[in-house]
């Protein structure tokens, strides 16, 4: 039971952090379909720090450094989207897809190039970070939690306050609804959209490292982040682009996901003898059903996906 809660919290931390990132981007009017790619790049940078920082590094410093580097890496990668979508008015869907194809390929190529020169001259897509991984764990009673779960709570709260209670948040939201009206009120739409996309990149980078670090001490980069960026997008849509709703959506989805990972620990579930693959499918089906129910009156930002054109009315 405690394992189920633990896994739920771990998955939820990843999903809500990334989904809130996506929310900031879409609220500013840019669809970030490349969240998956940003996650991979964040994960890669963080994992590199974790596996190659000397073991004598103090734990706290290592945690801070890993998180910082991941955030920066995700942010840098999201610049690809920001420049294409905002400056060149490129198609956001294709740009995002390209980023998702590019990131795992680039990450694998980089990891293989590094491992080729260090680990017995054999190229593998794996990075190992067993020691560093332990620094992220916090034990509370029988629960084995990690720093990212605390970060999740902070980020959800911060996102809520920023979006609804600050001038910046309200301005950001206006850019996603009616950018021309925002511009007429003296808001720099271009700048706001850059900030929106960069926040999404930063949070996706953080989510990336949270994902590969939370339950694993090594990661094969050729499998990217196995679709978690897309799941985060689904959670964002389900959460109607609102931080608190996203948080609960993430918890719900993560519960089913965690059930798939831990069902064998429950006597009555084990006795049902349901195929393991069914448990793997369950979260996706739940997600689809929820989307089907909740999409009817979509509350998507009105101007998302449309390049900003000053002259348009």
């Amino acid at each position: 039971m405690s394992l189920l809660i633990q896994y739920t919290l771990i998955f939820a931390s990843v999903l809500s952090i990334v989904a809130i990132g996506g929310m900031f981007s879409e609220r500013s009017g840019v669809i970030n379909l490349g969240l998956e790619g940003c996650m991979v790049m964040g994960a890669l940078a963080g994992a590199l720090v974790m596996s190659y920082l000397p073991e004598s590094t103090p734990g706290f410093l290592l945690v801070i450094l890993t998180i910082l580097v991941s955030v920066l890496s995700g942010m840098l990668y999201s610049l690809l989207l920001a420049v294409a979508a905002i400056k060149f008015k490129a198609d956001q869907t294709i740009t995002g897809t390209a980023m998702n194809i590019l990131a795992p390929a680039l990450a694998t190529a980089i990891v293989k190039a590094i491992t080729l020169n260090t680990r017995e001259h054999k190229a593998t897509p794996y990075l190992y970070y067993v020691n560093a991984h332990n620094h992220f764990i916090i034990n509370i009673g029988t629960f084995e939690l990690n720093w990212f779960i605390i970060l999740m709570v902070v980020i959800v709260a911060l996102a809520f306050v920023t979006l609804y209670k600050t001038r910046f948040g309200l301005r950001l939201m206006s850019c996603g609804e009616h950018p021309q009206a925002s511009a007429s009120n003296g808001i720099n739409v271009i700048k706001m959209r850059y900030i929106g996309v960069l926040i999404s990149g930063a949070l996706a980078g953080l989510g990336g490292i949270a994902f590969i670090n939370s339950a694993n001490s090594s990661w094969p980069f050729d499998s990217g982040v196995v679709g978690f960026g897309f799941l985060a997008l689904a959670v964002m849509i389900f959460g109607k682009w609102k931080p608190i709703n996203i948080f609960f959506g993430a918890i719900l989805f993560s519960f089913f996901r965690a059930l798939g990972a831990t069902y064998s620990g429950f006597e009555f579930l084990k006795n049902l003898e349901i195929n393991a693959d069914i448990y793997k499918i369950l979260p996706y089906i739940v997600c689809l059903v929820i989307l089907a129910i909740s999409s009817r009156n979509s509350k998507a930002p009105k101007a998302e996906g449309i390049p900003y054109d000053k002259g348009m009315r």
Partner: protein
Amino acid sequence: MKTKKSFFRSLLEKDGFKSLITSVACAVIGLLVGFIVLFIVSPSASLQGFKTLSLGFLAVPTKYGLRKEFLANTLTRAAPLIVSGVAILIAYKAGLFNIGASGQFTVGVFAALYMAFVWNAPWYLCMIGAMVFGALYGAIVGALKAFLNVNEVISGIMLNWIGLYLTSMLIKKNSKMWDSIKYETLPLPEKATLPTLGIDKLFNNYKYITIAIFIAIIVAVLFYVILEKTILGYKLKATGYNKYAAKYAGMKEKRNIIIILALSGSLAGLSGALLYLTGIERWYCPTNVPSMGFDGISAAFLGGLSPIGTIFSSLFITHITVGGSRLDTAFYSPEIAKVVTGVIIYLCAFVWFVKNKLNENLNRAKKKLEGLTLESIPKEDSQHSEEEVAE
């Protein structure tokens, strides 16, 4: 001299030619980035590596007909990619982004293999089965979009994973299909393998080359005709240009969405059949969604969203993928080919911008020419500069 210039200009004004130029530019820049990556990883091997990557089968020595075999390999792998690219582009023309093509591909593979192993069906029935399954799976995405307003990108992605796990589950349970020792599907029955019609003789008896490549080209040409010459194609594009106008003109929007995604899905399913019914690959129940649907996105956009262009872009992408697989693993990993494709699609997103700039320059040049004779031009010119300021 003068006639030459105007010929060049009229060529430039053609939309197809502009697409060709931009696609070639994307491919060249993509390859350049590939070279930079190769250089960073290992400067000394980069020249040889770039040769292997960019020349594909051409870099293979001709000895023992090896080069022919690699050419045949390229053609065999390009066939499903062409069909997958067409699947993406017909949906995109209608304003739908069928990212669920990978899932439709997966269920297509399942249908084809199930019919081949369990029912002992001949290859053409397996192919049709794959198309039907793909179409049904695509129709789910369409119905969710049409009736419940679910974004097709998200539902497509969810269905990709659902399809993957369902397929794995059903194949692994079936001892007629699954070799649990080798952890892959059993060898494909002769009856279900696509016929070669003697083409293999041309390629040093390379056994996987089949009529798949011809089927793929026929499909591409067929959809070119459908898009350009039929009412269905017109409706499809009209919905893509302006769905409200299409609705106002009396087109049934909801029905169209479902039909288009089913059509796209049937092609994605066919793509699965064209790959797995050659025997070149065996289904090993991967833990990740197969990339064919995503590669189709690359092929469609690099092909300038034209079915004919997709034939060539698919051949190019497969070409460098084969090149990537031949890279010296002492220095490089085959993923570098994928990096190149990724960069190319990224650049393809700018095509719209490039085309617009090209048009702008053309118009400006035209106006300059006409401005020598017409008085009304200065006015238009000033309008133009206003636009520029606004930009």
